[in-house]
């Protein structure tokens, strides 16, 4: 049930909708923080769009330039260090696609070959296809950089 939230009963959906709205309402006042007496200048770092990019929804290709799917989620540990990326793999028009967890270290964001920003996975489709499906709330089985399966409890 947890892995497929769109399948839950109507009642839960209505509840979820209500929660989202109240959350949105609750966040509104925070949008305008009260003016402070002695504002210390906040430290600001500017990151160029060539150096960094958001990766959610980004297209992943294998080193052999096969289309692997898109990044649907990122799994982080207690220190906030990324451990795995969830890739929506395969399928046609959304039918038959599977969410698969791959080790963070198997991903390259500026591949050696191109020198440009793009997401590349050092695994082939052949290695990825048999990986078990990712289910929210259950132990995640991560496909390692060498194609071996590893469990994050």
């Amino acid at each position, binding site marked *: *049930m947890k*892995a*497929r*939230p*769109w*399948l*839950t009963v*109507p009642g839960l*959906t*209505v509840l*979820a*909708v209500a929660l*989202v709205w109240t959350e949105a309402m609750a966040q509104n006042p925070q949008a305008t923080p009260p003016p402070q007496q002695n504002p210390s200048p906040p430290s600001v770092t500017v990151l160029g769009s060539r150096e960094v990019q*958001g990766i*959610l*929804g980004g*297209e992943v290709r294998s080193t052999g330039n096969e289309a692997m799917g*898109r990044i*649907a*989620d990122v799994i982080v540990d207690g220190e906030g260090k990324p451990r795995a990326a969830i890739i*929506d*793999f*395969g*399928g*046609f*028009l*959304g*039918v*038959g*696609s*599977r969410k698969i967890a791959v080790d963070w270290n198997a991903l390259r964001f500026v591949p050696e070959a191109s020198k440009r920003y793009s997401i590349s996975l050092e695994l*082939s*489709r*052949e290695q*990825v*296809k*048999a990986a078990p*499906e990712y*289910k*929210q709330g259950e132990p995640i089985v991560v496909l390692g950089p060498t194609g071996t399966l590893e469990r994050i409890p």
Partner: protein
Amino acid sequence: MKPSRRSLRGLDWFVFFVADVQTGFGPFVAVYLTAEKWTQVDIGLVLSMSGVVALLGQIPGGALLDWARRERLVAGIAVALISASAIAYAGWPILPVIFMAAILHAAASCVLGPAIAAISLGLVGPDKIGERLGRNARFASIGAGLSAGVMGACGYFFETRSVFIVTAALLIPTWWALRRIAPQEIDPEQAHGNVAAPRVTAPRSAKDPSALGLRSLLGQPALLVFGISILLFHLANAAMLPLMGSVLTTRSSEWATVLIAACMVGPQLVVAAFSPWAGRMAERWGRRPILLAGLAALPIRGFLFATVSDPYVLVAIQLLDGITATVMSVMVPLTIADLTRGTGRFNLTQGLIGTMMGVGASLSPTLAGYVTDRFGSPAAFSALAAIATIGLVLVALRMPETRPQAAVHREPAHSPVP
């Protein structure tokens, strides 16, 4: 009055384009929203919300059609709403907009399906409806098959949002086709099932359609049996293709995408080839043999999926889905037309059966997912096949023949001259 060739061709194309328009709104929505940096929680929320609306909207949608009595206008508005929601999907992929668009699409779809059946019934009348529904199914499946190919290519070669731009642009040809159907040729009495069949015992309801409410509809044993078997059918059927696609993704790396595409398009070819024939045979042999043949193909497909592992053989087995889809797309509206003759409640009853369909179809992935997680996909296929068998047995034992006896010969006043 015999409907003109122009109107009938207009209906052909309307059904064709409506099927095109609906293609992009299936499972592809999840792919698109993922590409637009949506989180999985929000995507799930949108999908479940539109599922709930699609379910709850069926009966009001049918009732609205029975009340409005202007199928062409209602269908035109519904198509425009769907097109507007496609523009919203393509243009503003943010939560409130997509939320509204998904609800709008689901609500409009609730009306559109019954409207097509009502226009068909209004044009050709109850005696020719079998063949007409077969023809509708042919054009719908050609539309769905073609647009799956075109939209798949769009999503692959261009941005994913191009799928929704194409969908929105389809409004123009859809309206053009709808305009070719002459409104004066749609007999409103026929379109709502008000024309009494010779064997229906209560012709009074033809004069007083309000006499028959939802409760008395549910009281009809044949309708109840039909509804429950439709529910069981969709409970068994809905998850089978996605589950099979997921199995294909694990078994074949290079060709999985092409094989899944073949699994989606292949059955459509079977429907396009055989559905008019199935409609004619339903008039000649009766409804039961056709319905039983279609329902029997489903458990066979399930058990074969459970046992076979070669990906290419799986695609061949998937062609059995074509037989089932042929039968269901013709027999569901046809049986409803039979059962509601002389009641004026054709569209309301379509909504009722549509709700049963929706309940079955929405529970199906949950059930299949649960069994797959626990016991593996062969067990899931077997479970689905077992449910399909229950539905088959129910129809075989309890569903009466609904074809009006010798309707063509005994009712010359209403039947168009062949």
